[in-house]
């Protein structure tokens, strides 16, 4: 299990595809837990085209292959036909893998695994949160209204 944060940004999913993906992601994490922090909860960007998720996730559900499988199901195709590219960005102190998922030359989805750059070791909850908060500060104009 991994308690951490990831973010998604819609690049070319249509409204129905995006809604299907978001519904699948909101269902991640435990169905019940005494700590609200461990239940899946999220935050939506002002334009509705990106969101942040946090929960006590099954590690296998937060991986490149897992997102390819979700996209494959949404498109009704084999997930192995979905490609990806990775860009590493450090928002605070740990690298965050930002993965762009594409198919037939079109980018459809970008996912940021806050504080996670691959491999077995996942960042601690606080470390992942630090990267997520630093990301939010960097892009505050996209996430916060002017009167906040």
């Amino acid at each position, binding site marked *: 299990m991994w308690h951490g*944060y990831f973010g998604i940004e819609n690049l070319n999913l249509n409204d129905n595809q995006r809604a299907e993906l978001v519904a699948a992601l909101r269902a991640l994490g435990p169905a019940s837990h*005494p*700590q*609200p*922090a461990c*239940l899946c*909860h*999220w*935050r*939506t960007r002002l334009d509705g085209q990106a969101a*942040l998720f*946090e929960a006590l996730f099954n590690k296998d559900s937060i991986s490149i292959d897992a997102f390819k499988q979700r996209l494959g199901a949404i498109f009704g195709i084999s997930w192995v036909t979905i490609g990806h590219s990775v860009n590493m960005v450090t928002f605070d102190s740990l690298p965050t893998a930002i993965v762009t998922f594409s198919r037939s030359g079109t980018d459809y989805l970008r996912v940021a695994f806050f504080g996670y750059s691959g491999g077995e070791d996942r960042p601690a909850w606080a470390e992942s*949160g630090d990267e*997520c*908060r630093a990301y*939010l*500060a960097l892009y*505050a104009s996209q*996430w*916060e*209204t002017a*009167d*906040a």
Partner: protein
Amino acid sequence: MPLGIGMGISPVFGGGLSYIQRVLATDPIAYWVLGERAGNVARCQVLAAQNGQHVGVTLGQPGIGDGNTCPYYDGTNDYTNVQTATLAGRFNGAEGTVIVWMRVANAGVWTDGQGREMIRVFVNANNHVRISKAAINNSVFSQYVAGGVTKTVQVANTSLANQCFGATWSSAADEFRLYIDGVPVGVTQTILGAWVGVPVVSVIGASSIVPAAPWHGWLAHVPLWNRALAPAEMADLYRP
């Protein structure tokens, strides 16, 4: 007498009453202690119909020293939603007080460039009240907007300790005040507008359930009154 978290804890401060008992003695219309140790219900000590919902918070953190715990809000997507039809019907935009105890997560919060809300009760852009950390460095403010007339009290603050924030508003007295640790701060605002409408958003730890402006740190003891408490009452409720 309402039953609440901590009611069974031995009184440790003056008068033999716990902090919760002293708050309840002032007849608030709502009071969320936020002392739950598990679950997503934020219990209102006044009316169960005003129970709220914790979203994403980490419960059971050290509180203000009264024997109760409090939640940690992570500054990304946590909040406590206390909007209910019952509260909306009882909230008094013309006369009121709200108190919230807070502590920031670390010194960096004061310079993180983010607006962060302790509490907001919102009808619309022309009628709302809030207590917030400002987006500009080392600054907090409270704002009372009524009938489109905005009144803001903003002061410097860099404390890393538990602090008791309060805002009082009174149309009858034509005053809006911000208190920190029981003492009025900043300039008392006058020539208030006339509040119109009932709240549609009432959130602790954010300005909305999006959530926007999420708090980063700890929040505890959020009572709400339908009258402006007197300075002596505000001073008394600073004692945990």
